[in-house]
């Protein structure tokens, strides 16, 4: 059942896909990547959040960083920034620890909470992977924003889970075809580090045939 490891997509691609399908395809299918200020700052922040040697106990809570997760059903793999394991009677046992633990995933984001739900989708997909790996149910997690220095609770509702599944289905389909979709250019193009690789203008159905013909026509003297 499900996808083979060969077909796994990167979980982090979900937020690219939610931001712009074309951006996701450029990065994950065409393997084009350009850094800009936003991406470099993001990397610095994640270096710390992802240091998997930093497993610690704090106030009875087990804090794990950079846990690798995957799901055969969804066909994705990736890593969680932080997963807290809270001692709880309705939790699950974990290898090498006594007692029962309830996992709570936390994703670190530079910047502030955004209008679109890309961050929540990514967190939810992480939780869905953890649920499969630990055989449990995870009702919610947190998004931590670097600018506000606050964590914001996210509830993994059936709707959110459906969106994750639908998106991943579409991503697998595009990846299988090796196809980079055209997308309506918008304001957010200006913040995208791939703007010069994407050439958003090309999504406006510019015709090169017409362009060539126009120039040849001038030549009819």
């Amino acid at each position, binding site marked *: 059942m499900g996808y083979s490891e060969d077909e796994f997509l990167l979980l982090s691609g979900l937020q690219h896909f939610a931001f712009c399908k074309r951006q996701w395809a450029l990065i994950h299918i065409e*393997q084009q990547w350009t850094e800009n200020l936003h991406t470099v700052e993001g990397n610095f922040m994640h270096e710390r959040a992802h240091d998997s040697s930093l497993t610690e106990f704090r106030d009875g809570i087990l804090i794990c960083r950079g846990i690798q997760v995957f799901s055969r059903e969804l066909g994705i793999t990736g890593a969680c920034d932080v997963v807290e394991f809270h001692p709880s009677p309705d939790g699950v046992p974990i290898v090498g620890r006594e007692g029962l633990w309830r996992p709570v995933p936390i994703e670190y984001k530079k910047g502030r909470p955004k209008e679109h739900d890309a961050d929540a989708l990514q967190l939810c997909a992480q939780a869905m992977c953890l649920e499969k790996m630990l055989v449990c149910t995870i009702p919610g997690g947190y998004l931590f924003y670097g600018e506000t220095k606050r964590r914001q609770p996210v509830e993994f509702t059936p709707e959110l889970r459906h969106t994750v599944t639908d998106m991943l289905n579409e991503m697998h389909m595009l990846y299988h075809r090796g*196809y980079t979709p055209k997308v309506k250019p918008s304001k957010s193009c200006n913040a995208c580090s791939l703007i010069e690789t994407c050439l958003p203008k090309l999504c406006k159905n510019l015709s090169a045939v017409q362009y060539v013909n126009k120039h040849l026509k001038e030549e009819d003297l």
Partner: protein
Amino acid sequence: MRHLLNTLFVLTEDSYLTLEGENVVVLCESEVRARFPLHTLQAILYFGYKGASPALMGACASRGVTLSFLTSFGKFLAQACGKMQGNVLLRKQQYRLSDSEHDSCQIARHFIIGKVYNCRWILERATRDHAMRVDVARLKKNSLQMAEILSQLAPCSDLDTLRGLEGKAANFYFDVFDELILQNKEHFYFQNRSRRPPRDNVNALLSFAYTLLANDCAAALESVGLDSYVGFLHRDRPGRASLTLDLMEEFRGVYADRFVISLINNREILPKQFEQKENGAVWLNDEGRKAVLSAWQARKKATITHPFLNEKLPWGLVPYVQALLLSRYLRGDLDAYPPFFWK
């Protein structure tokens, strides 16, 4: 648009390049002559024989800085390449189209249409800008012949006919090329193209400019994930960067030839900056190469408006944008390859 970074030209023959932290260091006799941060560079062109350290080659490859080795005369020797960029699906599509004469011709035709169009406008410009100095009637006549060829290119669907038409257009163009030279005529004149070796000052300049252009085009193609050795107009031949030659077609006149002409006409290059060898070959000397390279860098920074995208960008990025548009055509984003038209 992508930021235009600098090219570092290393012209001191016995210098050696090494890596120190994030910097490239130029050593002469184990003495540090210069130091540049790698992240400000797009390419390093090394004219000499001592070479560079493997650590520097690796750093260049992983940061996307093209490090090319050339002889001190500017003949290309080798390039440090890292992991292949881009995506195998794009390259396979490139190979598939390249295998088909029909599909190849669709793309090749546009390279040549761009070339003939641009060369024709070089002649037209000269009649407009220098009507008092040039033989207007002669230039107009040849330009008209080229317009005629353009109309035959549009429906052309086989590569041999295409090459024939391209050859005819090139003859009309080079036939009057000498008219464009307006200064120092006793030292700078053009009879015909000689390449192996160049046998006069103008041919030496043209050859050198084409080498620089080839380097820029190859880097542009590789950076968008295309294979610069698999062409459409130029067919496969071991060791030949066919797609680089293809992409160069539309730029030869408008980028390299015009550059050479303005070097001469603005007296930025002088007869004493050449030397003649026993076999009749003519090459730029050290001073001449320096003059050409600094002018080349300056030219790359000049701004133009891209005719297809309608966006302002520096000249130096035009080969990159064309490579990107080619890859977008191969991917199916565009209905044809839009050549760069200059007027």
